Protein backbone atom coordinates (compact mmCIF):
# COMPACT_ATOMS: atom_id res chain seq x y z
CA UNK A 1 0.00 0.00 0.00
CA UNK A 2 1.22 3.49 -0.87
CA UNK A 3 2.40 5.52 2.09
CA UNK A 4 2.42 9.29 2.20
CA UNK A 5 4.88 11.56 3.90
CA UNK A 6 4.76 15.32 4.46
CA UNK A 7 8.00 17.10 5.29
CA UNK A 8 8.66 20.73 6.13
CA UNK A 9 10.09 22.62 3.17
CA UNK A 10 13.34 24.00 4.57
CA UNK A 11 14.59 25.13 1.18
CA UNK A 12 13.87 28.66 0.14
CA UNK A 13 14.02 29.95 -3.39
CA UNK A 14 17.78 30.52 -2.92
CA UNK A 15 18.46 26.89 -2.12
CA UNK A 16 17.24 25.30 -5.34
CA UNK A 17 20.42 23.20 -5.91
CA UNK A 18 20.11 21.82 -2.36
CA UNK A 19 16.41 21.09 -2.87
CA UNK A 20 17.13 19.17 -6.10
CA UNK A 21 19.84 17.20 -4.30
CA UNK A 22 17.43 16.39 -1.47
CA UNK A 23 14.63 15.26 -3.83
CA UNK A 24 17.01 12.96 -5.72
CA UNK A 25 18.21 11.48 -2.43
CA UNK A 26 14.61 10.92 -1.30
CA UNK A 27 13.85 9.11 -4.61
CA UNK A 28 16.82 6.81 -4.01
CA UNK A 29 15.33 6.07 -0.57
CA UNK A 30 11.94 5.26 -2.14
CA UNK A 31 10.07 8.56 -1.68
CA UNK A 32 8.80 10.41 -4.74
CA UNK A 33 7.71 14.03 -4.61
CA UNK A 34 4.01 14.48 -5.34
CA UNK A 35 3.58 18.15 -4.45
CA UNK A 36 5.62 21.19 -3.56
CA UNK A 37 4.29 23.95 -1.32
CA UNK A 38 6.05 26.96 0.12
CA UNK A 39 6.05 25.38 3.61
CA UNK A 40 5.75 21.63 2.95
CA UNK A 41 6.82 18.87 0.57
CA UNK A 42 4.59 15.84 -0.07
CA UNK A 43 6.00 12.43 -0.92
CA UNK A 44 4.60 9.03 -1.74
CA UNK A 45 6.38 5.71 -1.21
CA UNK A 46 7.62 3.93 -4.35
CA UNK A 47 10.36 1.62 -5.54
CA UNK A 48 13.73 3.28 -4.78
CA UNK A 49 15.27 4.52 -8.03
CA UNK A 50 17.43 7.20 -9.65
CA UNK A 51 15.27 10.15 -10.70
CA UNK A 52 16.45 13.53 -11.98
CA UNK A 53 14.69 16.62 -10.68
CA UNK A 54 14.88 20.17 -11.95
CA UNK A 55 13.22 23.47 -11.11
CA UNK A 56 11.93 26.36 -13.16
CA UNK A 57 10.90 29.78 -11.93
CA UNK A 58 7.87 31.62 -13.25
CA UNK A 59 7.77 35.23 -12.17
CA UNK A 60 4.63 36.15 -14.07
CA UNK A 61 2.09 33.58 -12.97
CA UNK A 62 -0.06 33.43 -9.90
CA UNK A 63 -2.58 30.81 -10.88
CA UNK A 64 -4.59 27.99 -9.45
CA UNK A 65 -5.14 24.89 -11.49
CA UNK A 66 -8.52 26.01 -12.74
CA UNK A 67 -6.77 28.65 -14.80
CA UNK A 68 -3.48 27.42 -16.23
CA UNK A 69 -1.99 29.85 -18.72
CA UNK A 70 -1.77 28.19 -22.18
CA UNK A 71 1.86 29.28 -22.44
CA UNK A 72 2.65 27.19 -19.37
CA UNK A 73 0.87 24.17 -20.83
CA UNK A 74 2.91 24.61 -24.00
CA UNK A 75 6.08 24.61 -21.91
CA UNK A 76 5.05 21.37 -20.14
CA UNK A 77 4.43 19.82 -23.55
CA UNK A 78 7.86 20.90 -24.80
CA UNK A 79 9.46 19.60 -21.61
CA UNK A 80 7.73 16.25 -22.06
CA UNK A 81 9.50 15.84 -25.40
CA UNK A 82 12.73 15.57 -23.40
CA UNK A 83 11.11 13.32 -20.81
CA UNK A 84 10.53 16.00 -18.16
CA UNK A 85 7.22 15.66 -16.34
CA UNK A 86 5.65 18.44 -14.34
CA UNK A 87 4.83 17.73 -10.69
CA UNK A 88 3.93 20.71 -8.61
CA UNK A 89 1.15 23.21 -8.20
CA UNK A 90 3.10 26.08 -6.71
CA UNK A 91 2.79 29.08 -8.96
CA UNK A 92 6.30 30.45 -9.05
CA UNK A 93 8.41 27.33 -8.49
CA UNK A 94 7.74 24.54 -10.95
CA UNK A 95 9.33 21.17 -10.17
CA UNK A 96 9.92 18.61 -12.93
CA UNK A 97 11.23 15.05 -12.84
CA UNK A 98 12.79 12.83 -15.45
CA UNK A 99 13.37 9.08 -15.27
CA UNK A 100 15.68 8.89 -18.28
CA UNK A 101 19.26 7.95 -17.37
CA UNK A 102 20.95 11.03 -18.85
CA UNK A 103 18.35 13.65 -19.77
CA UNK A 104 18.90 16.99 -21.53
CA UNK A 105 18.90 19.62 -18.81
CA UNK A 106 15.89 21.91 -18.59
CA UNK A 107 18.34 24.78 -18.33
CA UNK A 108 20.80 24.62 -21.19
CA UNK A 109 21.70 28.33 -21.10
CA UNK A 110 22.79 29.77 -17.75
CA UNK A 111 22.25 33.39 -18.86
CA UNK A 112 18.61 32.70 -19.72
CA UNK A 113 18.07 30.90 -16.40
CA UNK A 114 19.57 33.87 -14.55
CA UNK A 115 17.31 36.29 -16.43
CA UNK A 116 14.26 34.23 -15.37
CA UNK A 117 15.44 33.91 -11.76
CA UNK A 118 16.27 37.62 -11.59
CA UNK A 119 12.76 38.47 -12.86
CA UNK A 120 11.23 36.44 -10.04
CA UNK A 121 13.53 37.75 -7.31
CA UNK A 122 13.03 41.37 -8.36
CA UNK A 123 9.27 40.95 -8.27
CA UNK A 124 9.01 38.88 -5.12
CA UNK A 125 11.91 40.06 -2.96
CA UNK A 126 13.92 43.08 -4.13
CA UNK A 127 10.84 45.34 -4.31
CA UNK A 128 9.90 44.35 -0.75
CA UNK A 129 13.47 44.84 0.54
CA UNK A 130 13.66 48.26 -1.09
CA UNK A 131 10.32 49.38 0.37
CA UNK A 132 11.27 48.11 3.83
CA UNK A 133 14.63 49.93 3.68
CA UNK A 134 12.95 53.18 2.56
CA UNK A 135 10.28 52.88 5.31
CA UNK A 136 12.95 52.28 7.97
CA UNK A 137 14.99 55.22 6.71
CA UNK A 138 11.96 57.58 6.69
CA UNK A 139 10.99 56.54 10.24
CA UNK A 140 14.56 57.08 11.44
CA UNK A 141 14.74 60.53 9.86
CA UNK A 142 11.30 61.45 11.27
CA UNK A 143 12.37 60.39 14.75
CA UNK A 144 15.64 62.36 14.50
CA UNK A 145 13.72 65.47 13.37
CA UNK A 146 11.28 65.07 16.27
CA UNK A 147 14.23 64.67 18.66
CA UNK A 148 15.87 67.89 17.45
CA UNK A 149 12.59 69.86 17.58
CA UNK A 150 11.86 68.55 21.11
CA UNK A 151 15.36 69.49 22.28
CA UNK A 152 14.94 73.01 20.87
CA UNK A 153 11.55 73.44 22.57
CA UNK A 154 12.97 72.10 25.84
CA UNK A 155 15.98 74.48 25.67
CA UNK A 156 13.62 77.45 25.21
CA UNK A 157 10.84 76.57 27.66
CA UNK A 158 12.53 74.14 30.05
CA UNK A 159 9.26 72.18 30.10
CA UNK A 160 8.64 68.57 29.31
CA UNK A 161 5.49 66.44 29.14
CA UNK A 162 4.41 62.84 29.27
CA UNK A 163 4.10 62.53 25.48
CA UNK A 164 7.74 63.50 24.99
CA UNK A 165 8.80 61.00 27.62
CA UNK A 166 6.72 58.27 25.94
CA UNK A 167 8.06 58.92 22.42
CA UNK A 168 11.63 59.10 23.74
CA UNK A 169 11.22 55.79 25.54
CA UNK A 170 9.74 54.14 22.46
CA UNK A 171 12.61 55.57 20.46
CA UNK A 172 15.08 53.59 22.55
CA UNK A 173 13.64 50.44 20.93
CA UNK A 174 12.47 51.95 17.64
CA UNK A 175 15.84 53.44 16.63
CA UNK A 176 17.92 50.24 16.96
CA UNK A 177 15.02 48.30 15.41
CA UNK A 178 14.92 50.60 12.38
CA UNK A 179 18.72 50.63 12.08
CA UNK A 180 18.65 46.81 12.00
CA UNK A 181 15.85 46.82 9.40
CA UNK A 182 17.64 49.38 7.24
CA UNK A 183 20.98 47.55 7.51
CA UNK A 184 19.50 44.11 6.83
CA UNK A 185 17.50 45.15 3.76
CA UNK A 186 20.35 47.20 2.29
CA UNK A 187 22.66 44.23 2.87
CA UNK A 188 20.25 41.86 1.09
CA UNK A 189 19.90 44.17 -1.92
CA UNK A 190 23.64 44.75 -2.11
CA UNK A 191 24.60 41.07 -1.70
CA UNK A 192 22.00 39.98 -4.26
CA UNK A 193 23.28 42.47 -6.85
CA UNK A 194 26.86 41.43 -6.13
CA UNK A 195 25.99 37.75 -6.62
CA UNK A 196 24.00 38.54 -9.77
CA UNK A 197 26.91 40.37 -11.42
CA UNK A 198 29.28 37.56 -10.51
CA UNK A 199 26.80 34.92 -11.69
CA UNK A 200 26.24 36.73 -15.01
CA UNK A 201 29.98 36.78 -15.72
CA UNK A 202 30.24 33.03 -15.01
CA UNK A 203 27.13 32.35 -17.10
CA UNK A 204 28.33 34.47 -20.02
CA UNK A 205 31.89 33.14 -20.01
CA UNK A 206 31.41 29.45 -19.17
CA UNK A 207 27.63 28.85 -19.33
CA UNK A 208 28.00 27.95 -15.67
CA UNK A 209 25.23 28.56 -13.16
CA UNK A 210 26.52 29.78 -9.80
CA UNK A 211 23.87 29.17 -7.13
CA UNK A 212 22.89 32.16 -4.99
CA UNK A 213 23.96 32.54 -1.36
CA UNK A 214 20.97 31.78 0.87
CA UNK A 215 21.95 33.78 4.01
CA UNK A 216 19.54 31.54 5.94
CA UNK A 217 21.19 32.45 9.28
CA UNK A 218 20.79 36.20 8.60
CA UNK A 219 17.20 35.56 7.50
CA UNK A 220 16.36 33.66 10.71
CA UNK A 221 18.14 36.22 12.93
CA UNK A 222 16.33 39.06 11.18
CA UNK A 223 13.00 37.29 11.62
CA UNK A 224 13.66 36.74 15.35
CA UNK A 225 14.72 40.37 15.87
CA UNK A 226 11.68 41.63 13.94
CA UNK A 227 9.27 39.54 16.00
CA UNK A 228 10.85 40.36 19.39
CA UNK A 229 11.28 44.06 18.53
CA UNK A 230 7.71 44.24 17.23
CA UNK A 231 6.30 42.65 20.40
CA UNK A 232 8.30 45.02 22.67
CA UNK A 233 7.09 48.05 20.71
CA UNK A 234 3.46 46.91 20.83
CA UNK A 235 3.72 46.36 24.63
CA UNK A 236 5.39 49.77 25.06
CA UNK A 237 2.74 51.48 22.98
CA UNK A 238 -0.10 49.74 24.84
CA UNK A 239 1.42 50.63 28.22
CA UNK A 240 1.95 54.30 27.35
CA UNK A 241 -1.52 54.57 25.80
CA UNK A 242 -3.02 53.16 28.99
CA UNK A 243 -1.02 55.53 31.20
CA UNK A 244 -1.95 58.48 28.95
CA UNK A 245 -5.62 57.48 29.25
CA UNK A 246 -5.48 57.35 33.05
CA UNK A 247 -3.59 60.64 33.23
CA UNK A 248 -6.18 62.36 31.07
CA UNK A 249 -8.97 60.64 33.05
CA UNK A 250 -7.51 61.96 36.30
CA UNK A 251 -7.01 65.36 34.67
CA UNK A 252 -3.23 65.44 35.28
Amino acid at each position, binding site marked *: MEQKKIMPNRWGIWDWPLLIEHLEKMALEGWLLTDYHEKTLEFVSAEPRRIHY*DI*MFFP*DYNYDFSDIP*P*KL*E*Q*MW*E*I*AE*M*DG*WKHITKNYYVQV*FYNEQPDP*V*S*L*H*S*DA*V*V*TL*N*GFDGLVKKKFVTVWRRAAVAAFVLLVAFCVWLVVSALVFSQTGETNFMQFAVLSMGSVLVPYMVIQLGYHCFRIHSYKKWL*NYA*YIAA*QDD*NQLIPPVSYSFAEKAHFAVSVVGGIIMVIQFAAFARIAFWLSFLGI
Partner: protein
Amino acid sequence: MPREKFKTLTEQMFYVLLALTDECCGMDIMEKVSQITHGRIKVGSGTLYNLLEQFSDEGIIAETKTEGRRRSYILTDKGRTLLEREYDRLVTQAQDYNRVINREVSYGTEEDYAEQMGNMGLAPAY
Protein backbone atom coordinates in the same frame (compact mmCIF):
# COMPACT_ATOMS: atom_id res chain seq x y z
CA MET B 1 24.72 50.15 -13.32
CA PRO B 2 21.81 48.07 -14.70
CA ARG B 3 22.83 45.31 -17.03
CA GLU B 4 21.71 45.71 -20.65
CA LYS B 5 19.69 42.67 -21.64
CA PHE B 6 20.67 40.93 -24.92
CA LYS B 7 23.62 43.28 -25.53
CA THR B 8 25.46 40.19 -26.67
CA LEU B 9 23.69 36.94 -27.44
CA THR B 10 24.64 33.55 -26.09
CA GLU B 11 25.01 30.71 -28.56
CA GLN B 12 21.53 29.37 -27.76
CA MET B 13 19.90 32.79 -28.06
CA PHE B 14 21.56 33.24 -31.44
CA TYR B 15 20.32 29.91 -32.79
CA VAL B 16 16.78 30.36 -31.43
CA LEU B 17 16.57 33.73 -33.21
CA LEU B 18 18.04 32.18 -36.34
CA ALA B 19 15.36 29.48 -36.23
CA LEU B 20 12.70 32.16 -35.90
CA THR B 21 13.55 33.87 -39.18
CA ASP B 22 10.69 31.66 -40.38
CA GLU B 23 7.51 31.34 -38.37
CA CYS B 24 7.56 28.33 -36.05
CA CYS B 25 6.32 27.03 -32.71
CA GLY B 26 8.29 25.92 -29.64
CA MET B 27 8.74 22.29 -30.62
CA ASP B 28 9.75 23.21 -34.17
CA ILE B 29 12.38 25.61 -32.81
CA MET B 30 14.04 22.83 -30.80
CA GLU B 31 14.17 20.57 -33.85
CA LYS B 32 15.31 23.35 -36.16
CA VAL B 33 18.18 24.39 -33.88
CA SER B 34 19.26 20.78 -33.64
CA GLN B 35 19.17 20.49 -37.46
CA ILE B 36 21.03 23.77 -38.10
CA THR B 37 23.81 22.81 -35.70
CA HIS B 38 23.83 19.10 -36.69
CA GLY B 39 22.91 18.18 -33.11
CA ARG B 40 25.74 20.19 -31.55
CA ILE B 41 23.33 22.52 -29.73
CA LYS B 42 20.36 21.13 -27.84
CA VAL B 43 18.14 23.79 -26.33
CA GLY B 44 16.62 22.74 -22.99
CA SER B 45 12.86 23.13 -22.75
CA GLY B 46 13.08 25.47 -19.76
CA THR B 47 15.61 27.63 -21.54
CA LEU B 48 13.47 27.75 -24.66
CA TYR B 49 10.36 28.71 -22.73
CA ASN B 50 12.20 31.45 -20.80
CA LEU B 51 13.78 32.71 -24.02
CA LEU B 52 10.46 32.95 -25.84
CA GLU B 53 9.00 34.87 -22.89
CA GLN B 54 11.97 37.22 -22.62
CA PHE B 55 12.24 37.82 -26.38
CA SER B 56 8.47 38.50 -26.56
CA ASP B 57 8.64 40.96 -23.66
CA GLU B 58 11.47 42.85 -25.39
CA GLY B 59 9.67 42.89 -28.77
CA ILE B 60 12.42 40.81 -30.38
CA ILE B 61 9.91 38.19 -31.52
CA ALA B 62 6.16 38.38 -32.04
CA GLU B 63 3.46 35.78 -31.54
CA THR B 64 1.77 35.05 -34.87
CA LYS B 65 -0.88 32.42 -34.16
CA THR B 66 -2.22 30.03 -31.54
CA GLU B 67 -3.50 26.56 -32.38
CA GLY B 68 -4.59 24.89 -29.13
CA ARG B 69 -1.49 24.78 -26.98
CA ARG B 70 0.78 25.58 -29.90
CA ARG B 71 1.89 29.16 -30.19
CA SER B 72 3.92 30.28 -33.18
CA TYR B 73 6.43 33.10 -33.24
CA ILE B 74 8.48 35.06 -35.78
CA LEU B 75 11.38 37.46 -35.64
CA THR B 76 10.46 41.18 -35.59
CA ASP B 77 12.50 43.96 -37.22
CA LYS B 78 14.09 44.63 -33.84
CA GLY B 79 15.00 40.94 -33.58
CA ARG B 80 16.45 40.92 -37.08
CA THR B 81 18.62 43.94 -36.25
CA LEU B 82 19.78 42.19 -33.08
CA LEU B 83 20.62 39.04 -35.01
CA GLU B 84 22.51 40.99 -37.66
CA ARG B 85 24.43 42.91 -35.01
CA GLU B 86 25.45 39.64 -33.38
CA TYR B 87 26.47 38.21 -36.76
CA ASP B 88 28.65 41.29 -37.44
CA ARG B 89 30.22 40.91 -34.01
CA LEU B 90 31.04 37.25 -34.66
CA VAL B 91 32.41 37.99 -38.15
CA THR B 92 34.61 40.75 -36.75
CA GLN B 93 35.90 38.33 -34.13
CA ALA B 94 36.65 35.75 -36.82
CA GLN B 95 38.41 38.39 -38.96
CA ASP B 96 40.48 39.51 -35.98
CA TYR B 97 41.39 35.92 -35.28
CA ASN B 98 42.42 35.31 -38.86
CA ARG B 99 44.38 38.56 -39.02
CA VAL B 100 46.37 37.74 -35.90
CA ILE B 101 46.89 34.05 -36.60
CA ASN B 102 47.77 34.50 -40.28
CA ARG B 103 50.27 37.24 -39.50
CA GLU B 104 51.87 35.18 -36.77
CA VAL B 105 52.23 32.23 -39.07
CA SER B 106 53.24 33.89 -42.33
CA TYR B 107 54.74 37.20 -41.10
CA GLY B 108 53.28 38.53 -44.34
CA THR B 109 52.81 42.09 -45.55
CA GLU B 110 49.54 44.02 -45.59
CA GLU B 111 49.09 42.92 -49.22
CA ASP B 112 49.63 39.25 -48.32
CA TYR B 113 47.11 39.59 -45.55
CA ALA B 114 44.53 41.24 -47.85
CA GLU B 115 45.06 38.42 -50.36
CA GLN B 116 44.69 35.75 -47.66
CA MET B 117 41.49 37.32 -46.42
CA GLY B 118 40.25 37.57 -50.02
CA ASN B 119 40.94 33.85 -50.50
CA MET B 120 38.78 33.14 -47.47
CA GLY B 121 36.02 35.35 -48.82
CA LEU B 122 36.43 37.89 -46.01
CA ALA B 123 37.15 41.60 -46.02
CA PRO B 124 40.43 42.71 -44.39
CA ALA B 125 39.73 44.02 -40.90
CA TYR B 126 41.80 47.16 -40.53
